[in-house]
């Protein structure tokens, strides 16, 4: 019971309980893993209509230069993150990651240009470490973890229609746009992004008004509350990495097939080439390749192949190749889906490998990611 007592709660905790959620500990928080609808229907509902997710456990951090200039904050954060932050336009968001001196990934994050400062969203399990990392390395910036804001994700093809009930202007936003807008007179920061492979939004709400905004969205007949269980199967079908599973300090961004996140300005020959931790390795891998890569894996049978299942070149388990990093049943794919790392000799789509599951060697096929067709509104 001590563990229970030590768990933190989000501003929507009582709402989850009232909706009949099954709660589980996640990254130090008591979070809804599923509601009475169940993981399967919650997943399918999000792909067909709209799902509301409480992601308030994630860290929302403001990075503001002491000079008050956006460029100074952007250039400071570029020392820790290998993406083009200076070139990010006001009201736009971009994916990135903190790298370490060995070129490994410390955490992945979303970065927004908010005019005179940056808004950074980081993973719950890493947020204290990320804030300490930024405070230690961004001497000319104020780094502030926002403890008084909830974060609500609204995902799915009907997300725009649901949000339009509260703000008609939502249809003017494109994928990765960020706007500050009052919802029910509550000042919210809305980004058109998410973690499901569907069109959708993440809405930062002052905690005192979080329940009111969540309830207003859930009032729409197309919107259901969705738990962490479906969040995981949705992101995996969408080919999106989970920090701690698919990426960590032992994986470089290039091994993780995340090179698309590095813009020209930070690569060899760019205006601000390198200048981030692990640049030598990461730029070297961009030029010369890596020995292994993250790929999509489709089990041929019906059995899910879970994280840490060993991968082999042969059906006898003689030549070990790598490991599955995420694996589950994909309700939209109607079959098991997985991701893992393989030597580059085995990463072409269509290559067959074998996963060890309960003493058997199950065939899997290397498959292009994502497993579903994303519906981002570009």
């Amino acid at each position: 019971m001590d563990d229970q007592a030590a768990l933190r709660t989000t501003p929507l905790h009582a709402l989850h309980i009232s909706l009949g959620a099954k709660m589980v500990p996640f990254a130090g928080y008591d979070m809804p893993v599923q509601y009475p609808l169940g993981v399967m229907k919650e997943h399918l509902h999000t792909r067909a209509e709209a799902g509301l997710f409480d992601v308030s456990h994630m860290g929302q951090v403001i990075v503001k230069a002491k000079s008050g200039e956006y460029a100074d904050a952007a250039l400071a954060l570029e020392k820790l993150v290998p993406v083009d932050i200076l070139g990010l336009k006001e009201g736009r968001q971009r994916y990135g990651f903190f790298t370490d001196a060995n070129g490994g990934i410390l955490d992945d994050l979303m970065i927004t240009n908010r005019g005179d400062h940056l808004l950074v969203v980081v993973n719950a399990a890493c947020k204290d470490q990320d804030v300490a990392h930024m405070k230690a390395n961004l001497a000319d910036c104020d780094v502030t973890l926002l403890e008084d804001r909830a974060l609500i994700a609204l995902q799915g093809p009907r997300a725009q229609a649901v949000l339009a009930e509260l703000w008609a202007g939502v249809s003017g936003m494109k994928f990765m746009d960020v706007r500050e807008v009052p919802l029910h007179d509550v000042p919210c920061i809305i980004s058109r992004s998410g973690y499901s492979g569907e069109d959708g939004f993440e809405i930062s709400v002052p905690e005192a008004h979080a329940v009111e905004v969540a309830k207003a969205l859930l009032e729409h007949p197309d919107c259901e509350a969705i738990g962490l269980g479906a969040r995981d199967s949705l992101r995996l079908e969408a080919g999106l990495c989970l920090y701690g599973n698919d990426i960590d300090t032992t994986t470089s961004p290039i091994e993780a097939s995340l090179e698309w996140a590095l813009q020209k300005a930070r690569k060899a020959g760019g205006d601000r080439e390198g200048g981030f931790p692990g640049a030598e390795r990461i730029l070297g891998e961009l030029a010369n390749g890596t020995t292994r890569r993250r790929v999509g894996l489709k089990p041929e049978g019906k059995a899910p192949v879970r994280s840490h299942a060993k991968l082999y070149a042969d059906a006898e388990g003689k030549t070990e190749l790598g490991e599955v990093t995420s694996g589950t049943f994909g309700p939209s794919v109607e079959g098991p889906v997985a991701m893992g790392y393989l030597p580059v000799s085995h990463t072409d789509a269509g290559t067959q490998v074998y996963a060890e599951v309960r003493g058997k060697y199950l065939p899997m096929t290397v498959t292009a990611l994502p497993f579903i067709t994303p519906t981002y509104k570009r």
Partner: protein
Amino acid sequence: MLKFTAEHEWLKLEGDVATVGITQHAADQLGDLVFVELPEVGAELTKDGNAATVESVKAASDVYSPLDGEVTEVNQAIVDDPSLVNSDPQGAAWFFKLKLKNVSDVEGLMDEAAYKDLIG
């Protein structure tokens, strides 16, 4: 005669053959099942040993053999459609039939009242 185990299996005895499945409580706890693996017909199972595997979207779980015996029949219907286990766990979604080594061992299992007390 319906009997139960602390591992949330049920067992229905007819002669010396027991039909085995998982309880409604277990099915509710597991959530939507997406995969079922059953033992082979002819397999010799031992009490509390692994008998079957069920997987939800979230995780894999073992199903144990309630007693010693030999598998005489398995229910292919739940392999073809694992969601049957969620909809009718104590009826159509039985797992396997077990020819018991010692029929009298059944007496050591819980009756329905005792099982209900266990799950509260």
